[in-house]
């Protein structure tokens, strides 16, 4: 296992430039592109002292009122980030951006996990069914994958809202939990917190609220998982060791398990790559269901032109995505002993 450790260290080191590139990209997108953010925030007719104050807040000017050159702004930003300082919001009490992000992050994690679970169940079931059965089943599963992949999340979400919340009235139309039922914060995930504290009324309410968003997100992501699982299972099924195992009289259900284990490596890699899709999907799902997560937060702050928060949130997304990709890679190495060498 020593080589697994070496692999992890190498991967962690490789993570640093990736994150740095994304931070840099976001920084320059927000600064260099045409349009003056300061004017955009305060408007053309704002008094000059307000403009200067804002420029200081944004790190565009030093305390003496002299403009700071862009490279220095960049380095200042990096050094602040390295200390975990994402800056302060430009609106409403100017709270630290990171604090605000952390308030919204658990909601996104909860939704992403729930959606991920739904999509994995759908994807693995349908995908292995298609791969294992082949023929017409495989084609049907393929079509399912192609259609669900191309669904527009808000539309599917709205149709589900229309059907289950408006017409049938059996599930809430939006939100994360009924007001007043929020469980005490431990992990920030309502479902888990309410189980830990034994608040079953909270649990039921949270579960009812998350059902439609998780279904929407899960359905759309399942398209990719179905496709990956199907092709991967089909590929493994063609390998000689399947025939060899059959030739030893191994029963089909055991072979299926081995096939799935072998298919799992590419599936896992692809799942890691789909994290971007999951995040994208979560942002769209959140805004459709007024889910108080990072996506809703980001878009709300865009409306208010709260640039430090927008920038901080996007950088935060970048860090999270890179970290999860790292974890996926390590799992990959752990499952498949070959890639450690």
């Amino acid at each position, binding site marked *: 296992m020593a080589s697994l450790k070496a692999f992890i260290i190498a991967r962690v080191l490789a993570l640093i430039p990736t994150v740095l590139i994304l931070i840099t990209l976001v920084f320059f997108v927000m600064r260099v592109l045409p349009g003056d953010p300061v004017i955009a925030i305060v408007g053309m007719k704002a008094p000059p002292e307000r403009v200067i104050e804002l420029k200081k807040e944004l790190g565009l000017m030093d305390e003496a009122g002299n403009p700071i050159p862009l490279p220095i702004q960049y380095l200042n930003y990096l050094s602040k980030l390295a200390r975990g300082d994402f800056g302060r919001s430009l609106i409403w009490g100017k709270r630290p951006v990171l604090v605000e992000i952390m308030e919204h992050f658990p909601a996104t994690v909860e939704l992403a996990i729930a959606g991920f679970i739904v999509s994995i169940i759908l994807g693995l079931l349908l995908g292995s069914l298609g791969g294992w059965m*082949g*023929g017409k089943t495989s084609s049907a599963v393929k079509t399912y994958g192609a259609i669900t992949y191309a669904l527009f999340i808000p539309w599917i979400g709205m149709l589900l809202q229309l059907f289950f919340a408006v017409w049938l009235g059996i599930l809430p139309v939006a939100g994360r939990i009924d007001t007043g039922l929020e469980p005490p914060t431990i992990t920030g995930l309502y479902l888990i917190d309410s189980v830990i504290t034994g608040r079953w009324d909270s649990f039921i309410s949270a579960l009812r609220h998350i059902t439609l968003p998780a279904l929407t997100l899960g359905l759309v992501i399942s398209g990719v998982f179905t496709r990956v699982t199907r092709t991967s299972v089909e590929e493994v099924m063609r*390998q*000689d*060791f399947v*025939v*060899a*195992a*059959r*030739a*030893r*009289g*191994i*029963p089909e259900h*055991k072979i299926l398990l*081995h096939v799935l*284990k*072998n298919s799992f*490596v590419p599936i896992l890699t692809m799942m890691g790559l789909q994290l971007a899709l999951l995040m994208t999907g979560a942002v769209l799902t959140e805004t459709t269901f007024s889910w108080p997560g990072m996506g809703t937060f980001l878009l709300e702050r865009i409306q208010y032109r709260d640039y430090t928060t927008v920038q901080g949130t996007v950088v935060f997304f970048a860090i999270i995505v890179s970290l999860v990709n790292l974890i996926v890679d390590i799992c990959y190495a752990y*499952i*498949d*002993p*070959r890639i450690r*060498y």
Partner: protein
Amino acid sequence: MADPLLNIKNLKTYYFTESGIVKAVDDVTLGIRRGELLGLVGESGSGKSTLGLSIIRLIPPPGKIIDGSVLLDNIDLMSISEKELRRIRGRRIGMIFQDPLTCLDPLRRIEDQMVETVMVHMDVERDEAREMAAKALERVGISGDRLKDYPHQLSGGMRQRAMIAMATMLHPELLIADEPTTALDVIVQSRIMDLLEDLKESMKMSILLITHDLALVIERADRVAVMYAGELCEVGTSEQISQDPLHPYTKLLLESIPDVEAPKTKLKSIPGNPPDMRNPPSGCRFWPRCPYAKDICKQTPPKFAELNGRIVRCHLYGGGKS
């Protein structure tokens, strides 16, 4: 036939591809005797591997066994249930393949794959199964502690040994070896063949050796069956085939073996190409490449003829009459 173990009768296996039906095995009748090493020789695409897989009904789609029977001690493997057949695969009939690396599950230790096989067939505890696996490995010349290895940690020759250990662990009566040495270098190749012969003797097992290498078969096998375009051409002992080949195809195959004693002689190759199996020639399938082809060969498929205890399928030997 003297003490037959397995009788293949009129076996037909076709592949139903989009571009037509491929008659990969077409009406093959062949017996395998107890304790013999029977070599099955043919070019690639002759259907020899399909024949091997057909015996234990492992033909992948779009292939299908159309007709015929395969009797193992009067049990017809073609008509018993999948469940009954599974008890025979690995237990009474073992099989090894060309590329041992792809035939081993890359993600599981050798041990797990062997123990699983034992426990599927026998009602034993895990420890006992592990012991059997270790013994089987030692029998093929691999130290028992390599059980913990993953397939990629073994060398090519060792992998094939491990495959053989896995296939012979439960003392099968028949081992089907499909090009077992093709992927290996010459020295390893001959050691693997030695091992197979040793196992054959010590376990009193029959081996069906499927290969394109006629020289190997003549050197190692007791009897030889030659296959061309889905059909058997000729069956005989190794001596008969090497000293006195009857079928023109066998003759040509023999001439194309490089002679180590006389390296200067010109190496002959068989003219022409194997036929398009979706649309094989009428009559005898070999006639377009046969130097002795007559008019009858182009029209009527020959039948098997017995000749001094040997069988051959060719019009030159009265194949048309029977």
